[in-house]
């Protein structure tokens, strides 16, 4: 594109495809789709340079509803497909849309490896703690004891903590939000989209058919500020409807709830998303409701070279140092001999 081309100003509508949306009425996915359409025009990226890749599950229908390039692929493999695409085409902006079953169960391996490589992908995982498309079996994030079609006496599986997994895998951007928390979700998606490297965003998403109300603690107006801590970079961890409670590390280094009337702000735990050491983010990720107030927002945002960028650098370094490949000399490399005409 020449420098004097004026980029058209895109709006939400430019990102809506002509497809009829087939999610259940009142599904949390609608809100996430709406916020994504809000965020994309702010990125200044031409529509044709954006690709959504998804796996299988309700959330994975997402690419059909975006007027960008997209692929609705096979179960669990979206991070691997997106890795191939991004390595082949580092110029593209690539989102992965996935769910808790898709990302953490059948596709767990690919998620780990995309994150540890720091492929420049924006991975948005819709967590509804249930298998929706197959009509209601427990998922790898369902709580123990959850009664579902496949666990009539209660699930015996210990759930995975998605953010701990992501931090453990070395993700450079880790965040959490909730489907109906519109402003917060928009902010998180925008930050993820602007991160250079693997961004992992867990979005609490209500499946009102098979797991209704699983995240009311984090979405109900009167409850969410009592149950959640909205992380602000460089600020102490303070929460509560009256912002009267905070988090401090006790002598053993564990977070504990304190009343602000008892301590000074300086004694509280301060949030710093840019700490390279994952301990801080991991500690926050371990704080789960109802045992503790639960942090929401950006847990970790650090810089590390991206995998696709490094592959591209090595690729171009080789061409620069060795010259563009010459087939003639490739064929004649090694021991050769000549058979002369007699």
């Amino acid at each position, binding site marked *: 594109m020449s420098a004097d081309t004026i980029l058209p100003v895109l709006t939400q509508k430019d990102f809506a*495809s002509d*497809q009829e949306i087939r999610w259940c009425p009142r599904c949390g996915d609608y809100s996430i789709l709406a916020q994504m359409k809000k965020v994309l025009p702010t990125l200044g990226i*031409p*529509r*044709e*340079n*954006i*690709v959504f*890749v998804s796996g*299988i599950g309700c959330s994975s229908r997402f*690419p*059909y509803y*975006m*007027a*960008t*390039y*997209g*692929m*609705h*692929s*096979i179960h669990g*493999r979206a991070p*691997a*497909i*997106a*890795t*191939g*695409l*991004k*390595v*082949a*085409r580092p*110029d*593209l902006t690539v989102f992965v849309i996935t769910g808790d079953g898709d990302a953490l169960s059948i596709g767990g*391996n*690919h998620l780990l*490896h995309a994150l540890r490589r720091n492929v420049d992908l924006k991975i948005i995982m819709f967590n509804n703690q249930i298998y929706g498309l197959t009509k209601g079996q427990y998922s790898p994030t369902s709580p123990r004891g959850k009664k579902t079609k496949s666990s009539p006496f209660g699930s015996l599986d210990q759930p995975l903590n998605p953010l701990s997994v992501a931090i453990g895998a070395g993700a450079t951007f880790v965040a959490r939000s909730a489907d109906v928390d519109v402003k917060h979700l928009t902010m998180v998606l925008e930050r993820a989209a602007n991160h250079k490297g693997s961004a992992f965003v867990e979005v609490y998403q209500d499946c009102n058919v098979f797991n209704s109300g699983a995240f009311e603690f984090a979405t109900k107006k009167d409850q969410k500020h009592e149950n959640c801590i909205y992380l602000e970079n460089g600020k102490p961890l303070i929460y509560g409807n009256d912002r009267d409670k905070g988090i401090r590390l006790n002598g053993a280094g564990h977070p504990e709830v304190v009343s602000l009337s008892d301590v000074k702000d300086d004694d509280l735990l301060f949030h710093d998303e840019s700490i390279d050491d994952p301990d801080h983010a991991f500690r926050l990720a371990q704080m789960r409701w109802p045992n503790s107030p639960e942090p929401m927002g950006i847990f970790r945002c650090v810089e590390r070279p991206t995998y696709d960028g490094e*592959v591209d650098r*090595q*690729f171009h370094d*080789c*061409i620069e140092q*060795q*010259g*563009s*490949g010459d*087939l*003639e000399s*490739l*064929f*004649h490399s*090694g*021991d*050769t*001999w*000549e*058979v*002369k*005409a*007699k």
Partner: protein
Amino acid sequence: MSSESPASTTNGKSSNGSKTLETVESIVIRFCGDSGDGMQLAGTQFTNVSAIFGNDVSTLPDFPAEIRAPAGSLFGVSGFQVCFSSAEIFTPGDDVDTLVAMNPAALKTNLEDLKRGGTLIVNEDAFDKSNLKKAHYESNPLDDEGGQLAAYRIHKVPMTRLTRDAVAGLGLTVREADRCKNFFAMGLVYWLYDRDSTPTEDWVKEKFSKYPSIVEANLRALKAGYNFGFSTEQFTVHYEVPSAELEPGHYRKITGNEAVAMGLATAAKLAEKELFYGGYPITPASDILHELSKLKRFGVKTFQAEDEIAAITSIVGAAFGGALSVTASSGPGIALKSEGIGLGIITELPMVIVNVQRGGPSTGLPTKTEQSDLFMTYFGRNGDAPMPVIAARSPADCFNMAQEAVRIAVEYMTPVFLLTDGYIANGAEPWKIPDVSDLYKINVQYTTEPNGEGDEYLPYLRDDRLVRPWAIPGTPGLEHRLGGLEKWDGSGEVSYDPDNHEHMIRTRAQKVANIADSIPEQEVEGPESGDLLVVSWGGTYGAVKSACTESRRQGKSVAHCHLQYIHPFPKNLGQILKNYKKVLIPELNAGQMWMILRGVYLVDAVSFTKVKGKPFLIGELCAKIDEVLAS
């Protein structure tokens, strides 16, 4: 032919006073020893010097799946067979003329392949109590004069001791000194077959340039072996195999895996497109990943994926992005790729899947060859999911077929299977280096304009060959979504319509069938009609061709039809099968091509199978041909 007695003449030349130099047409040597004895190196070096000298060569490496099996054990034996000839050859030979056995286990596991009267060279130092016990010998076979070794010309050489003597004074540990004994064995064989050792000396100097004492030790061992043959009275005759009359031109030695990698890089370079290779290490396909990872300057990006599934799906993503996309694996890995290949079929994206076949099922025989993945590549996906399958016939042919796989994938917007096998992947032969200007240049065209009404882009609007366009991300106005769900023909929108689904199933199948328009007609070697047609495919080419040639030489009416295009078959194959009274289909599986040809053409063919992890011998094929002709 190596299976026959070499036509031997005493040419009167004498390399020193007491030794006679005889000329022979063709020789088969096998080096065998512990997997740590450096037998693959010895075989490779012997092959190199013979190829550079101008012989035709063909090799068969045979090594255990264990990297370092317990020393002296029967299952830890590693072998390398090479046939070198002054005539054109197509296999590494049936029977071994000269066997070099570095220990009792190697002798025990390889002796049956040595022809009676053949030359047996053993390292007698290795025949101690412990090694004999590990090889399950109750007594030392070397001491048993008139025993099982009486049928051979045996040379007992104290290689360990002589090697230690040769490297004495270099400050090497005993262990290091003993590791040089493969060079002693090479030196002896170089003398025996009048080879010029210069290329090996140069290789040693370069390979160990950082370790001058190792260079010196290996060179001394090589020379000591050579001189041992020259001076000892054990050897009275040595042999020369004159150079072969190959087509004039420049040659190099190439293995199938090297040729696949080079063919892929060539296809990409000539198409002026990037090649994306996603792979996961697996025997015997890993060398393709190794070779390609060196070739970045040819526009190659390699991605070592976390598993086989990520390898195949990464290339789906890369193909969507517009790269020439390739993965390679072997049986167990291909099994894991099945779902990803299905996605490639329904999204109709170009990609190449190389299957270097090995013995199965399951982990099976990782280092041994077989042709038993034909069904898996032909059928092995859920749903009606046909895709093109082609097969290389020799190490050098892998270069052509790799380019052909890319061509079919791009021209027909489909995944393509390229079948090779452990035998041609690891085996080597001389490759006549092509002229770059003679190579086919694949024309890759991305769609950039809308093709529907108004500004609409229809990703599944097909041309008259039923091929859909390839529009890649980054192209304004052509934004579209692909996926694994069935789609409406033309628009590509998700569709559960029953008639559309049947239409799409038949359309995708017809598109693959249309590839027959772009491939050469099937050729037959031998009479155009007659008593017997032998149909082969893949890596058995050399042995079957040789057997058919031999049968014709004996006056029999035997033709050979070797298939490189397996799905679709060449258009004239059905007619060819009708031109002969009998059809014989030899293959290294339990009869897979036999069943497919019966199913497709209703041909009442005879199946001849071997599933031992080993290639066909020419002799056993000749015997089967005679049996079928007589029946």
